[in-house]
């Protein structure tokens, strides 16, 4: 079935419909990773977004559901050049097409994803509309200009808290849309973990005297989450060890008086070089963010990590505090950040 992607600037891309057949309006973002579509689509940080994958052949290794970063697909739409009919992997359970259908997510294939990515690069992020029906371009464009994304954290955070027992330090994870892999990394260090919905009154959590708090990743514009920022302020004022990741990093900066702005070009991909000042070297990181910390008072925090390409702030160490926040998700090579967090909480006696 023919499908169309219409962008806010009036450009139209014709392709074939994939996944569930439904119209959708969303912010369109481009991700440059070569692998990782299962994880990307189920990453709550992509909530409400239409994801353009720049790698042209997608679906080659099918889907293993245990690789998902959450319980469902959060992205609203998948935009690819070719959804590979050929799919092969020893762990494959279903195809990518089935995966989309299972979670009722729509998409489009057969479009020039590089052209779309270039357009987003040149014009900044845009809203888009995907449909299989006839449409009036002017009407669609008018609607797209008015479109505003909803509060993402509310949509993606868990309903109730859950406890994962461990023999190590006690850690609270505030779920702004936490990825499974973050919790897994904490589990791997035997920490005693409780994941809280973002709506949990913060005093309730602080009262329990956790050794550390993880502020998770999540979707949306951090500046709009005023209640959450107020909560994070309280955490900042406590003496608890804090690890902020992605959105958590941005929220902490806002809570501490820093500023966060929407980026001209967001970082979405697996190849961002981040310099670790204390180590004198950089690591390649996976990133997914459209907002970035642009300033924070030097007396409050020092920039501990920065991006080699565009010099953006990638990590902050808060002065006089036991707080480290990073703009990327520590994993693989940078997994040791979790070990650092354990040290921040007073060591790893039971790890």
């Amino acid at each position: 079935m023919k499908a169309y992607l219409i962008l806010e600037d009036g450009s139209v891309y014709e392709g074939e419909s994939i996944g569930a057949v439904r119209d959708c309006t969303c912010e369109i973002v481009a991700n440059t990773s070569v692998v990782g579509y299962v994880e990307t689509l189920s990453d709550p940080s992509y909530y409400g977004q239409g994801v353009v994958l720049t790698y042209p052949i997608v679906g080659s290794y099918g889907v293993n559901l245990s690789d998902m970063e959450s319980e469902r697909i959060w992205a609203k739409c998948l935009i690819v050049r070719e959804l590979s009919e050929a799919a092969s992997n020893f762990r494959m359970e279903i195809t990518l097409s089935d995966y989309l259908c299972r979670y009722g997510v729509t998409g489009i294939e057969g479009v020039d994803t590089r052209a779309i990515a270039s357009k987003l690069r040149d014009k900044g992020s845009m809203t888009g509309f995907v449909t299989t029906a006839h449409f009036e371009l002017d009407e669609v464009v008018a609607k797209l200009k008015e479109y505003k994304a909803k509060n993402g954290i509310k949509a993606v955070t868990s309903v109730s808290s859950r406890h994962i027992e461990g023999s190590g330090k006690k850690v609270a994870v505030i779920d702004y849309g936490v990825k499974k892999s973050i919790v897994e990394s904490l589990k791997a260090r035997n920490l005693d973990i409780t994941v809280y919905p973002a709506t949990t009154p913060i005093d309730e959590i602080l009262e329990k005297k956790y050794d550390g708090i993880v502020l998770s990743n999540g979707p949306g514009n951090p500046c709009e989450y005023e209640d959450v920022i107020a909560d994070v302020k309280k955490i900042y004022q406590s003496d608890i060890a804090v690890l902020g990741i992605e959105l958590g990093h941005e929220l902490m900066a806002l809570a501490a008086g820093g500023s966060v702005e929407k980026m001209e070009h967001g970082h979405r991909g697996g190849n961002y070089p981040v310099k670790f000042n204390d180590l004198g070297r950089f690591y390649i990181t996976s990133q997914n963010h459209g907002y970035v910390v642009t300033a924070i008072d030097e007396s409050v925090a020092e920039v501990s990590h920065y991006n080699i390409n565009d010099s953006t702030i990638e990590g902050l160490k808060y002065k006089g505090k036991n707080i480290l926040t990073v703009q990327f998700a520590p994993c693989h090579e940078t997994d040791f950040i979790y070990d650092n967090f354990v040290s921040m909480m007073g060591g790893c006696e039971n790890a």
Partner: protein
Amino acid sequence: MPKNTDVKKVLVIGSGPIIIGQAAEFDYAGTQACRTLKEEGMEVVLINSNPATIMTDKDIADKVYIEPLTIETLKKVIIAEKPDSILPTLGGQTGLNLAMEIAETGFLEEHGVKLLGTSPETIRMAEDRQGFKDAMEDIGQPCIASKVVETYADGLAFAKEIGFPVIIRPAYTLGGTGGGIAENEEEFSQIAPHGIRLSRVGQILVEKCIAGWKEIEFEAMRDASGSAITICSMENLDPVGVHTGDSIVVAPAQTLATKEFNMLREAALKIINKLGVEGGCNIQFALEPNSFEYAVIEVNPRLSRSSALASKATGYPIAKVATRIAMGYNLDEIKNAVTGKTFAGFEPTIDYIVAKFPKWPFDKFVTAERKLGTQMKATGEVMSIATSFEGALLKAVRSLELNIFQLDLPQYREFTKEMLYEELKKIDDMRLFVIAQAFLKGITVEEIHDITKIDNWFLTKIKAIVDLGVELKKGSLTPEKLEKAKIYGYTDKIIGEYVGMDEKAVKEMRKANSIMPAYKMVDTCAAEFEAITPYYYSCYGSENESKGEVQEGKKKIMVLGSGPIRIGQGIEFDYCSVHCVWALKSLGYETIIVNNNPETVSTDFDIADKLYFEPLTPEDVENIVDLEQPYGAIVQFGGQTAIKLTKALKDMGVRILGTKAEDVDRAEDRELFDEILEANNIPRPAGRTVFTCEEAIEAANEIGYPVLVRPSYVLGGQGMEIAYNDRDITVYMEIINRSVQEHPILVDKYVIGKEVEVDAVCDGEDILIPGIMEHIERTGVHSGDSISVYPTQTISQKDIDTIIDYTEKLARALNVVGLINIQFIVASDGVYIIEVNPRSSRTVPYISKVTNVPIVKLAVRAMMGEKLKDMGYGIGLNPAADYVAVKMPVFSFEKLHDVDISLGPEMKSTGEVLGIAPTFHEALYKSFVGSNMKIPTEGNLLITVRDTDKEEVCALAKEFEKHGFRIYATGGTCKYLIDNGVNAKKVNKIAEGAPDILDFISGGGCDLVINTPTRGRQHNRDGFKIRRTSVERSIPCLTSLDTAKALLASIEQKSAGDVGIIDISTL
């Protein structure tokens, strides 16, 4: 860390001659390195024995030594030049070994020379089997389990420990004789004891068998601060068991899910960190397809063939960055030249798929064993870029110039299912086409996977290509089908054939439906940043990014490249293409290069103003022409690949710059050319053009045997043979006609004499001959396989005058503007023409360097309208130099089983080296050393020659005797030698009982073999075995008495003492 300021003068070691396994990629790496060093203000000293390379140009390095790559020469260069550092990791294994060897002697410390980049300790750790295993164990990286054992019991215990199947490899047997794969204990009990018996030292290596695992490579880069990135992942379509150089490779890896991908990527980074590499590194993994089990196969702590591929596949200039790292920079201090915005620390990501396809020499070596295994056999490769796997694969296939444009080959169409099941078991160069045919005959993906172990993903995609072909043949062509076919990489011509339409009509239909190729940029970042590299590939269903705009006030010229490296068309033509681009640029033209070889300098994005990485077929070129509308095209420098496109370009309305297409035709067309010769009173050996075998026999009898038989329009004497009788002709014609011949076949009288070669520049009026070359071997040996000497040593002034006269006449008659290459026979009764090529030749780089005449540049200037008399290099024949330069061919016979090593009219060498010295004998000696021949100064010489050579060999034998050689010979030869006063000893022929001649050669008592083959293509099996056995034992085997005489002269030279070195930039 900022640049290391102690480094001021750097010695770069090249990789020597092109051989199988070490091709043009090191010219690419070395050239990039030298240019980078110069950009950094370094003084660069270069040593490389290969004169056909761009890196050995004096404008690439400050001092250029085209000298044998030996420790002795290296020491001399270091003493003469006093460099403070050596960059050892860009000259392949040859360069690396040499650097390591000299480092171990302590010579470098003595002379205060440092090795830059990756340290010797690291290199040792990576290359030493046990050291590497230990290092991997330290960081928990699994290697392939293996153990050397001496008893059956120990072997079996180990096999049980690691689990069956296991590979058994006897130590010190050739070609793995006596080894094999044991699936279970019973098979082990059969193979292992046999292997232990066959091994000279009674040892076998028992190794876990991982055949069928996926083969994955990562190219990684690390700096001194410890920061490391992976540049590119690559996946071999062929599972473990086929050398990666012989595999179809795709980038990025296609069948790995996130988990496996990250697991191997992380492992690669752990390994490069553990080894402490400072620069580039290639890491090969085997991955069990049904689990997360993997093993590290190999690590190369240097630039490699895969680095060149990864560099071209991503746009990331690996050699440049590795050089800067060696100079002390860190990755986050080096700007990415592609984007101009990002830094070298940004890991490239790509938004297309790349396919690499090997170019094998089996079309030339028809008798060679085509089976692929752990010994690489390909001489070169092509790369293609597309947005679909199907498109990339078909683009690569048609880039091979095998006249294959789709996967359904006629030779398999008659195969039944049963035959195909059998055929699928063979692992050879035809496997892809067998798989395609299997799909056509209804064999399933699963069945093929069970036999080949190729991943289902690749198989399903191959099936998709085949299925679309079948679909096209049904019903009429719709715009939808047409677009899909284009995305899948089918050419208009094939689509036309499938649907019953003319190629032109298909193109018209495309135009009418706006199904046009778009050109996308290779930018290292998947469009995340705006890039500035003009590096493009085509795809369908896309928006075009290459605008085809014209630079203000500049004319656009298209230069057609030479495609994959193959026997007969090597790196020389890339040298010429690159120099053509540089010359055009210096004259103020805008340049566009089209080529498909990832190993070369010409496909580096900063050579031409625009690079189109595309197949060199009429359709692919026409699409670029349509977009760019070039002022003209140059075909003279890209070998036969570019010449073949002349007519198509003309039909597209493109101006052919330089010699006109009609004149090229007149040189190639037998009858037209004969008219020119006749008009100018120039003799050539009598000849005829024929099409059929009957005509050929008739022509041969008319002219009189022996005759040369060959197809026209070929390079490197492909399919050329000397025929002595009707039967020979029948055999050759059958071989020639195996591939479709569009042009007639030539039958010429074989005239015996000296061969002389000339390259000349002509501006339409005057000519300039930089120098005349004389071949050591007499006519009958292909010019590319002959030892070539400049200036001539034995040609009389009268004959030279005739040669100049003929050259002038021919250049004028053919209206040559640009280059012309002519081969002559100087026979007892005068000078004959063998052939004329109105284009660049294999000898251009060599003769340019040794005569100090920039031939390509002058030719380009002439083509653009300048006159030789205004160029300042003189006209007519340049005065001969007061030194001698000898070009020696280098072969790769030890890598190609079942190939006859005897020299003949068909070219067999893969590369060349240069020897340059004040005297002929010194130069000759150097070239033998450079070609890696172990020159024996005494020992046992085995002689077995055909009857007609006996008289001549007798005199030679006496000379060798004088030098203390003991002469051995078989029956007839031996008797003749003894009768004529040589103290020869008899060796049994093969049928005469043990110990026979083969035992003699293998037994270690033989130091040199002279064997001239009996006439005709009909293999004399004895002679063939003698020659092959010599090659496999690394014993020099000479098949021409002329070469033997030359060697004798060199033996005398070797005894006479040391020879000096020459910096060619001072000539």
